[in-house]
């Protein structure tokens, strides 16, 4: 009895495997049919290393508020308060943005100035290094993108980011925040619970030939300038050539692409 039970189980196992491969071959055949064509939008902004240059001297409360509001409106960022807040761009003081650089005799109004803080779209991003599913990755143009369809919500990227740029959806925005408020931009999705989100450098706007929302909001004062660092003629490069600019935590080797003219 034992001999034949063992061989019965063996045959069962092998046939299950066999049937399984049969159906998956079938599936592969179906998907492989046809060659749909996808193109980039013709007027998309194309670059090799997108960066932001923030002129802190041109920033005041009003300008920063405009920039933050523009971003959060365009991307339907829920405005939670407290420790579960979600923010793509916000302001903080010098001592928090550049920890270790502060001292007792800081110049002028630097101590109280509002610094705009967001994802740095690093050229060497630790968040992309640690993501187990490539739900966040670095595009060829330098933008560190998020794919909320793939994110499993492990939050390893949040632990990996040295700048605290990432937020997590601890609760479901659709049934909590957006029940009380109208999504300001119905052409852009909201996020579900359990995924990470952060600034995406307005990739969807760049695809339509538009500059990032925060940049647009302060374009009169040019407090934030958007440009391609690999293009020597870009406004961003010119600004960096003319003014001394610093970046956050450069010693960590992340090679951030948000520069601050202080």
């Amino acid at each position: 009895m034992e001999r034949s039970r063992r061989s019965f189980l063996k045959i069962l196992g092998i046939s299950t495997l066999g049937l399984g491969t049969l159906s998956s071959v079938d599936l592969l055949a179906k998907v492989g049919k046809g060659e749909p064509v996808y193109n980039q939008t013709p007027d998309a902004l194309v670059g090799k290393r997108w960066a932001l240059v923030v002129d802190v001297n041109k920033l005041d409360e009003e300008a920063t508020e405009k920039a933050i509001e523009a971003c959060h409106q365009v991307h339907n960022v829920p405005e939670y308060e407290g420790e579960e807040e979600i923010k793509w761009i916000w302001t903080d003081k010098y001592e928090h943005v550049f920890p270790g650089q502060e001292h007792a005799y800081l110049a002028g109004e630097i101590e109280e100035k509002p610094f705009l803080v967001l994802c740095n779209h690093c050229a060497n991003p630790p968040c992309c290094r640690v993501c187990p599913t490539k739900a966040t990755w670095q595009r060829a143009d330098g933008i560190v993108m998020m794919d909320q369809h793939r994110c499993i919500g492990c939050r390893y990227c949040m632990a990996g980011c040295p700048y605290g740029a990432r937020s997590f959806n601890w609760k479901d925005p659709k049934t909590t925040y957006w029940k009380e408020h109208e999504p300001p931009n119905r052409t852009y999705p909201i996020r579900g619970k359990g995924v990470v989100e952060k600034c995406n450098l307005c990739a969807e706007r760049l695809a339509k030939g538009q500059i990032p929302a925060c940049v647009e909001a302060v374009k009169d004062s040019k407090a934030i300038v958007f440009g391609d660092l690999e293009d020597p003629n870009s406004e961003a490069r010119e600004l960096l050539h003319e003014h001394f600019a610093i970046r956050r935590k450069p010693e960590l080797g992340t090679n951030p692409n948000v520069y601050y003219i202080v």
Partner: protein
Amino acid sequence: MYNKGLVITGIVIFVVFFTSPFLIGLVKSGPPPEPELSPKAKEARLCVEAKEFMVESHMQVLNDWRDEAVRNGKRIYVASDGKEYVVSLQNTCMDCHNNKSKFCDQCHNYAGVSPYCWECHIEPKEK
């Protein structure tokens, strides 16, 4: 076989329980889904691809659209008839099919599936 009576009874009960949804369906089934095209969709007459193809494969199309737009940055889809569409569930598909409850939900509810798209993609407002 040991406990032949118990074992065979057990197998019979299991088979009946396991196939009960189908057996109940034989006796009493709900009405088949009747998805209703919105006026805008009716006017457009042609979806991104042929109706039969879309009925069978719109899930695959949406998956491909998702990957091409988000992951590859390619937001223009060239259909098999040469027409170009902006790759967007919210802004292209739902622009024409703006009556989710009378269209999309009809088949989805019948088949008992709840695609998670709507967790994030904003549904068009219906009158």
